[in-house]
């Protein structure tokens, strides 16, 4: 789960990492008192916000009012904000980059820094990295101070590293990115912007009340104008189904992993979402049931046929746990099954192009 900036900053503040003073302006609620001048930032779950016009500096009440209206009406990558963060305007001396993440390849927590932060950070390639468990926070803070060439900030950076580590572990975060880490002209280090990704698997031990920013990893649109929708179980099979569909000359609109143990309701909701694709003409369903039960999937398919009047032709392949039961349920509703994915793709191709 990706957090919004103000949510991430709240967790940083709790961990004693300095963030700018600020208040949240919520849509449709009376505006709180904002100290001027201020920076007004659209709270959308996407990057590149600054370049897309999602950040405005306001000097007067007049400007604050205008910019508030403007930002609430201004979509960024199709996303409209539910809130704006109004923060003190900092006098910036330097912008740095600092992040802490769990790294897949190294199976370890990695501290990553760059001496130039800000919106162009993607252009940097020479990031400096440390495996956190190999060093104490004091050593890492010292190394950062040397690297940033900010010897007078050594103590402050040691604190930042120590507190970031605590913040990452305590919140079950996979990533905390501070970009920019601002050095103010009065020599303070402040988190100018913050991104945080929490580990959904750890939700059971937290009381998370976040806006649920970001996209679902299990439903991704590949091509809004695609003519073929795909449904599969397991991320690997879902990807493999899309790969095979493209190889067969179809144009998949989406990637959908219904996961293990999906219920009839969640499956039906997925069917409804697929109907939003304007060019949709066929649906490929590829299930290899292990923990997912084939009969549940079959019931959802029957329900979708009943509830969605303009459902396009379905090309279904089901194998695995409870296959026989699934086959019976579908046969009773006169919905055909095909023995292999290849045959589904060939039949779909015929439907589309012949």
């Amino acid at each position: 789960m990706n957090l919004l900036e103000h949510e991430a900053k709240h967790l940083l503040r709790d961990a004693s990492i300095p963030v700018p003073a600020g208040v949240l302006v919520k849509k449709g609620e009376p505006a709180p008192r904002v100290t001027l001048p201020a920076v007004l930032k659209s709270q959308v779950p996407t990057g590149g916000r600054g370049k897309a016009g999602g950040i405005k500096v306001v000097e007067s009440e007049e400007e604050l009012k205008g910019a508030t209206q403007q930002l609430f009406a201004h979509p960024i990558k199709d996303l409209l904000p539910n809130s704006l963060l109004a923060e003190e305007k900092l006098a910036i001396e330097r912008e740095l980059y600092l992040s802490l993440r769990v790294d897949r390849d190294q199976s370890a927590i990695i501290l990553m820094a760059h001496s130039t932060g800000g919106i162009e950070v993607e252009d940097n390639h020479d990031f400096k990295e440390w495996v956190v468990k190999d060093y104490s926070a004091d050593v890492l803070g010292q190394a950062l101070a040397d690297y940033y060439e900010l010897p007078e900030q050594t103590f402050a950076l040691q604190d930042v590293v120590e507190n970031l580590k605590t913040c990452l572990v305590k919140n079950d975060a996979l990533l905390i990115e501070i970009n920019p880490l601002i050095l103010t002209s009065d020599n303070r280090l402040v988190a100018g912007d913050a991104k945080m990704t929490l580990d959904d698997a750890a939700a059971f031990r937290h009381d998370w009340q976040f806006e649920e920013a970001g996209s679902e990893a299990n439903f991704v649109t590949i091509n809004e104008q695609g003519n073929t929708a795909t449904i599969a179980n397991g991320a690997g099979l879902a990807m493999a189904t899309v790969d095979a569909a493209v190889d067969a000359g179809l144009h998949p609109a989406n990637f959908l992993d219904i996961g293990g143990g999906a219920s009839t309701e969640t499956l039906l909701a997925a069917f409804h979402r697929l109907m939003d694709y304007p060019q949709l003409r066929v649906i490929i369903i590829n299930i290899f049931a292990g923990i997912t039960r084939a009969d549940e999937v079959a019931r959802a398919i029957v329900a979708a046929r009943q509830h969605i009047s303009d459902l396009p032709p379905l090309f279904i392949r089901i194998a695995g746990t409870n296959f026989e039961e699934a086959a019976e349920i579908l046969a009773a509703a006169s919905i055909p099954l095909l023995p292999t994915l290849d045959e589904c793709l060939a039949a779909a191709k015929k439907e589309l192009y012949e």
Partner: protein
Amino acid sequence: MNNLFTGKNVIVQGITGAHGSFQTKSMLAAGTNIIAGTTPGKAGQLVEGVPVYDSIADIQKEHTVDISVIFVPARFAKGALLEAIAANVPLVICITEGIPVHDMLAVNEALTHSGTTLLGPNSPGALLPGVHKLGIIPAAMSLPGSTAIVSRSGTLTYEAMAALTAKGIGQKYVIGIGGDMVHGMGFIDCLRLFQDDPDVDRIIVIGEIGGHEELRAADFIKEHVTKPTFAYIAGHHAPAGVQLGHAGAILGSEGESAMAKTEALKSAGATTATSLTSLLASIV
């Protein structure tokens, strides 16, 4: 590595749970020698005729334990894994999915100072057709033989195995390493096992987008693997599921795509394809 997968005495941690008991039955049916199981507080019970103990240490008072298969729920998995590591179980296979990443970092730390090898978590386990089943891979779709399969994805493991079986091509090993961020055995560990086992004459590798493990596997294949190897990377056309902000975008730029990984495996000498069905079609 000795062949840990042929260890005789198998236990099941979390044997009294819904998954644990169901899968115990299915493993017994596939010939697995399950000597005992654990669930704290449930010592003395029987599950499918298998005696339940409170802890691994209690089992070890009476038996040697070669392999433990873990089905405990995610929130208790870290404890179960640390218990198995502390008990020095040579091979631990963790089926549990949804274990918090920070829990796995702690487990990983304990593993580096231990004599335990871990497969998983979030893995379907390993199946040695005709020998035994250590996890949830459906044995009915397998056939004993000499092909070895290693995959990151559970469903694609089954898919590849079932397709080979349908063609009459049997398998010596079917292993799912699991798709979690922090996990035990990787592709290279399995490739080494397959290369060193004289009964294996063909290797199938199924990877995915994200991370660099398949690239390192390609290097290993180039240097050390002499057996015919077939590889497919899932996700040629699927966008990456999880974007870790800028850090992820920066790190994810090179080498993590299906195309880059496929290229690397191809230049390492593997037969590759852009879909699993076409890869399987090329195996005769």
